[in-house]
């Protein structure tokens, strides 16, 4: 028996325009929690897909328990004991939890499916993961945390030896994260190795035995967790020292540009009121499901509201559709950029004018020259890595896609920019560029709203913070207030009072 459950040696994988992996190596010991970090585009996704048999490497060797393997497809990788819980879960929302777990490995009695036994096993395996659930319920009715456990249960049931978790906490609330950590430790104690991919360094320090850093498709180094520090990890990931993770710059506080009064949506938002000023970043803190996204979508006219009023520069505006909101000078950078921000099948230049076709038209006709020049300028100023502005957006990496979304809204020349989780799933370098865009906006007197689930980002970038919980505004904290710290804001987000 080898020391390692999985070893990669000299793996090279090429894609159009990039060498995604170059002489990559990775070795995961039996029953360890192994962290894998790197900027976006560092090659983590490709590495996972090589391990799971989705991609076949152009060069290099894969060993499972000392034995060389060649995975032609995901089934072969699964048979070798490798499972993956992808960031975007593969859940059939309408099917029951049992169906999801036993999909393609049905237990039968004669010709018929043996639901009695499958339900029982589902209940057992879910319970062993700390979830008491009715196995007959449709998986889509469960929270994200449970849905993730369903994926893990699938892996456990086929007796996987290595479970890859790709950003497992990115869509979870605080309590669900804790449950997940417990589960990871439980799996480890059963001798199952975990390859844990995360953008949250604190999680790595809490969970991992060893951490491997990769950069630009290349292996950088693996160390035991006690030999890493926050700074050394970031230095290793970006290949340069970051003097300041949050390059916050201050604009001049202007007038109230956005005023929201008693915004209510039945069962979702309750009398949400706040004001946002020009030249400032207003941060929105809270747990997942606190109603922050719902609030900005309501302001933007994306969802209907039951009552409440919205004032732009002192004038009341009815936001009956996003079209109205865009006309009124609001830009919403949605959390889900692929599903809601971009037309992936269209080239960069067409996405850039999505919110500003009028400004790019002479009469009914589009001015292609102006569009091309403008897009080219934005590609350069936002440093979007692409062969040309004619590149289909679906071909770009996540960080570059986010920059196209930013370009789209810069083109619309809005007054109020709403960023919903603007740096989720993008690398440290691209994050800083996003922060710099915010700086430029507030310095130009624009009003910026930023929803973020990352406390350091909230504290690093906001001039003022609104804390929400359960569809209500719980607290409002100025940057120079004594409450402008992680503990107090967290307390408010959990429902505590700041005046105690």
């Amino acid at each position, binding site marked *: 028996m080898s020391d390692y459950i999985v070893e990669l040696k000299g793996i090279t994988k*090429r894609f*159009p*325009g990039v060498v995604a992996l170059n002489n990559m190596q990775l070795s995961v010991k039996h029953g360890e929690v192994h962290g894998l970090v790197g900027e976006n585009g560092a090659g983590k996704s490709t590495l996972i897909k090589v391990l799971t048999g989705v991609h076949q490497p152009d060069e290099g060797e894969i060993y499972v328990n000392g034995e060389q393997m060649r995975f032609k497809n995901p089934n072969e990788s699964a048979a070798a004991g490798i499972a993956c819980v992808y960031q975007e879960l593969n859940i059939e929302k309408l099917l029951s939890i049992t169906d999801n777990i036993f999909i393609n490995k049905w237990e039968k009695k004669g010709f018929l499916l043996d639901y009695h036994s499958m339900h029982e096993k589902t209940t057992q395996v879910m319970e062993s993961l700390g979830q008491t659930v009715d196995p007959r319920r449709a998986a889509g009715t469960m929270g994200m945390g449970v849905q993730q456990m369903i994926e893990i249960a699938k892996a456990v049931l086929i007796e996987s030896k290595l479970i890859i978790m790709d950003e497992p906490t990115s869509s979870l609330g605080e309590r669900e994260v804790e449950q997940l950590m417990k589960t990871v430790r439980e799996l480890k104690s059963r001798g199952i190795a975990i390859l844990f991919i995360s953008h949250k360094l604190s999680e790595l320090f809490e969970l991992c035995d060893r951490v491997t850093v990769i950069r630009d498709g290349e292996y950088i180094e693996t160390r035991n967790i006690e030999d890493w520090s926050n700074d050394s990890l970031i230095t290793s990931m970006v290949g340069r020292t970051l003097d300041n993770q949050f390059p916050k710059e201050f604009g001049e506080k202007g007038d109230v540009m956005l005023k929201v009064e008693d915004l209510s949506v039945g069962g979702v938002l309750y009398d949400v009121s706040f004001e946002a000023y020009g030249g400032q970043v207003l941060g929105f803190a809270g747990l997942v499901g606190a109603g922050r996204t719902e609030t900005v979508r309501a302001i933007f006219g994306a969802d209907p509201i039951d009552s409440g009023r919205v004032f732009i520069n002192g004038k009341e505006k009815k936001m009956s559709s996003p079209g109205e909101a865009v006309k009124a000078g609001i830009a919403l950078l949605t959390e889900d950029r692929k599903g809601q921000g971009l*037309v992936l*099948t269209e080239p960069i230049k067409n996405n850039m004018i*999505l*919110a500003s*076709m009028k400004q790019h038209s002479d009469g*009914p006709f589009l001015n292609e020259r102006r569009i091309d020049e403008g897009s080219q300028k934005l590609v350069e100023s936002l440093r979007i890595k692409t062969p040309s502005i004619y590149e289909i957006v679906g071909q770009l990496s996540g960080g570059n896609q986010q920059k196209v979304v930013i370009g789209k809204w810069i083109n619309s020349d809005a007054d109020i920019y709403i960023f919903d989780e603007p740096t989720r799933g993008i690398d440290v370098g691209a994050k800083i560029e996003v922060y710099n865009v915010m700086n430029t906006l507030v310095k130009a007197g624009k009003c910026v709203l930023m929803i973020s689930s990352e406390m350091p980002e909230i504290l690093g970038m906001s001039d003022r913070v609104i804390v929400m919980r359960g569809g209500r505004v719980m607290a409002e904290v100025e940057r120079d207030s004594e409450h402008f710290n992680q503990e107090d804001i967290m307390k408010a987000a959990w429902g505590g009072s700041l005046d105690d």
Partner: protein
Amino acid sequence: MTKKRTFAGIQMGTILALIIMCVVLSLANRNFYSYDNVMGIFKQTAFNAFLSVGMLLCLITAGIDLSVGANAVFTACLMGAMNKAGVSSGLLMMLVALIAGGAFGFINGVLLTRLHLPHPFVSTLGMKNVLWGLALVVTGSQMVSGFPDSVQWLGRTTIQGFPVSFIMVLIVYVIMHIFLSRTALGRSIYCAGGNIEASRLSGINTANVLTFCYTLSGVMAAIAGIVSVGRSGISNGANATQPYDTDAIAACVIGGASFTGGKGTMVGTMIGCLIITVLRNGFSLLSIQSSIQNIVLGLVIILAVLMDVLRANMEAKRRRLASAK
């Protein structure tokens, strides 16, 4: 890096297929290449070409309009009913036909965008049956003939043998090509088809964009109805059972449109229309049964889509290899 949707972007394979078909048919039957027959092909293409305009727009939005054929028949019958009722003004008949066709298209759009029916497949299928029934109701299930010359002019007149209806088709196709490729609304149609939610959240009024497409589809169906009256001299509600809708879909799909939306061009659709007519025409000249025609047409549709898939795969491979250098 080529720009998207320029002429080079249209499948050369489809154009090549059309040319090869023409060459083979010319060799097989001398009459195929005669001036009269070629003009006949243009004349026969006009009806489907108009229906395909609306179908293409709806397909680009990732929708479909299954009522185009029935709408064309209905508008023809509506003119027939007016004719029977003693309306003498051909202009009035055509105006009413265009408004009625557009109105039913508009209803299709409203059902989809304002009443939120899940997919236009179902609503336009319903509308197809409604229009079929209405066509029979307004004419009392009778054929109507004796239309004024002004109504028949579009479908019947030729200039030096060249059918006016096809000249009209060319004009409409050029205008629609410019519309789709050069105007903000045209680009919005592609964007709405590619990702309707992203387009909506970018401030594009996607409901209006879609409603526009279905309304225009209805107007185009009415023009096709007028052409059909001129060509045949009659309006006949029983024609609503003809496979007009699927011919229009076939033309668009052969021309590169996709059911997933965001794709399709006027030039491609024109070629698709011509392929279908050339096939029907050529086989008739060769006295091949219509059953065989149907089989071959079916295979052509499948082949066209297959080619498109293979082309996309090859493109992906080319990118991969280019990057490996």
